[in-house]
């Protein structure tokens, strides 16, 4: 990685405000906890069973919201990737937001497959069917695992951001196809429930379903904020390690050791320590090795 790129990434990492992010995650965390509690209470005790689906309708308060958060995560990843690729907007914060969205989206995508499979077993009698939307969601999950594996394989932050942004755009295309799969292909999957002129849920069912969207939305935002903060702290750790190593190297240059022959000390002085390459015992930790030329 070039020194210019390291400086850009380092200065961007130092300009972040982890303390504010910590407060935001706390507020979001409490909001998620309270709304999830309300969803559980309304979903299990207040909302009545459905005429057709009976008790299985309670999956309606989990699965659609979780699936929507999966789309939101990958959508956020795609938007942040576009912002990173746009030369005028390019900033490491978009890359951090992209990885946060993709990682949280992958978690919700896994949860979508699991909750969908449970609901499918109850409604259709099978854990899995080769339905267009199910298949595309499984493909999307595999794509997201590939995206995350690719990020882990590239060390250089600039290269990692560029390559993963390109992969994210392809993932976004799959999300679009996935979302419209129910209308494009013949599918067993239920169509739109809420976003239609005549919604098929009413009363407590509708209220609980909307609360589930608020709850999982808060949980999603909490996880994204947390993941973003973690990425920021990692960047800062790398940047400060690099800065402290540079400072140690400069200190060596400014204060050269006394020209005393090895093993000989001036009267009343201790023998000189052998020269070290980076940092000093007890000094700031240095993550980056500095080569002495």
């Amino acid at each position, binding site marked *: 990685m070039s020194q210019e790129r390291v400086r850009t990434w380092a200065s961007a990492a130092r300009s972040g405000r982890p303390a504010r992010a910590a407060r935001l995650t706390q507020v979001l965390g409490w909001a998620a906890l309270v709304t999830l509690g309300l969803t559980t209470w309304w979903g299990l005790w207040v909302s009545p069973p459905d005429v057709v689906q009976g008790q299985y309708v309670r999956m309606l308060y989990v699965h659609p919201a979780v699936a929507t958060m999966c789309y939101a995560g990958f959508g956020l990843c795609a938007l942040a990737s576009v912002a990173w690729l746009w030369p005028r907007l390019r900033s490491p914060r978009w890359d951090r937001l992209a990885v946060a969205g993709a990682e949280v989206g992958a978690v919700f995508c896994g949860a979508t497959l699991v909750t969908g499979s449970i609901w499918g077993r109850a409604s259709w009698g099978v854990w899995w069917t080769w339905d267009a939307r199910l298949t*595309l969601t499984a493909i999307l999950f595999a794509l997201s695992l590939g995206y995350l594996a690719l990020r882990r394989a590239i060390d250089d932050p600039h290269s990692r951001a*560029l390559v993963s942004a390109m*992969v994210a755009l*392809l993932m976004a295309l799959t999300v679009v196809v996935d979302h419209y799969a129910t209308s494009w292909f013949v599918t067993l999957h239920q169509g739109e429930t809420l976003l239609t002129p005549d919604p098929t849920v009413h009363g407590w069912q509708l209220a609980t379903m909307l609360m589930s969207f608020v709850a999982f939305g808060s949980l999603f935002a909490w996880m994204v904020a947390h993941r973003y903060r973690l990425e920021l702290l990692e960047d800062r750790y790398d940047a400060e390690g690099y800065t402290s190593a540079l400072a140690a190297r400069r200190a060596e240059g400014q204060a050269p050791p006394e020209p005393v022959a090895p093993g000989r000390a001036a009267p009343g002085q201790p023998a000189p320590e052998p020269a070290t390459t980076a940092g000093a015992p007890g000094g700031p930790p240095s993550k980056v090795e500095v080569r002495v030329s």
Partner: protein
Amino acid sequence: MWRDALLVAGKDLRIEGSSKVALNQVGPYSVVVLLLFGFAFDQDRPLLTEAAPGLFWIAVLFSAVLAVQRSFALETSDGAVDRLRLSRLEPAGIFLGKAAAVAVQLLLLEGLLALGVVVLFHARLAGAALLGASALVATAGIAAAGVAYAALSMGLRVRETLLPLLLAPVLAPIVLASTEAWRSALGVSTGDGWRWLGLLGGFAAIYLAGGVLSFGALMEET
């Protein structure tokens, strides 16, 4: 760009012609995959005949991973990729040339595999226009996505394991659409095969355009 593409495709095909890796290794491997499918289905002839289109395209997918890995192994050895970067060839031309070379090898391989499904699975090839058109379009899409992803993972330490993980989900829609088109052409299903061919064309166009636009940046960064 087109002249550069022809140059790169000619270079890759000449190297394959002299080394014969595709002929001696990838071809036999794809036939072995077909044999293994026969063992897995317990030599159930009606089931194998019905599943022949899907098994054919899965075998093509496995072989494509090997073909694109081989295509970039040529460039990574002896620092050839640095010479390719320093040459004044257009990145889009390099991408199209490498994709064309992989596509030619895959088409030859598909001919061998088609013979394999006829002999081993007793599939009756019919609907030649749909079969040929879907094979051409699917091969273009597979080669384009394969070359773009191979370039993306070229400089990585874990490229051998990462490439199949990245490529398989990307090629899944192509395998799905081409299988459905072939099922329709062979009369196994009553679906509209030409509609699936349209979907195939869409994916192939996206992968080709994505590769042309991004290959320069990928070559610089990896």
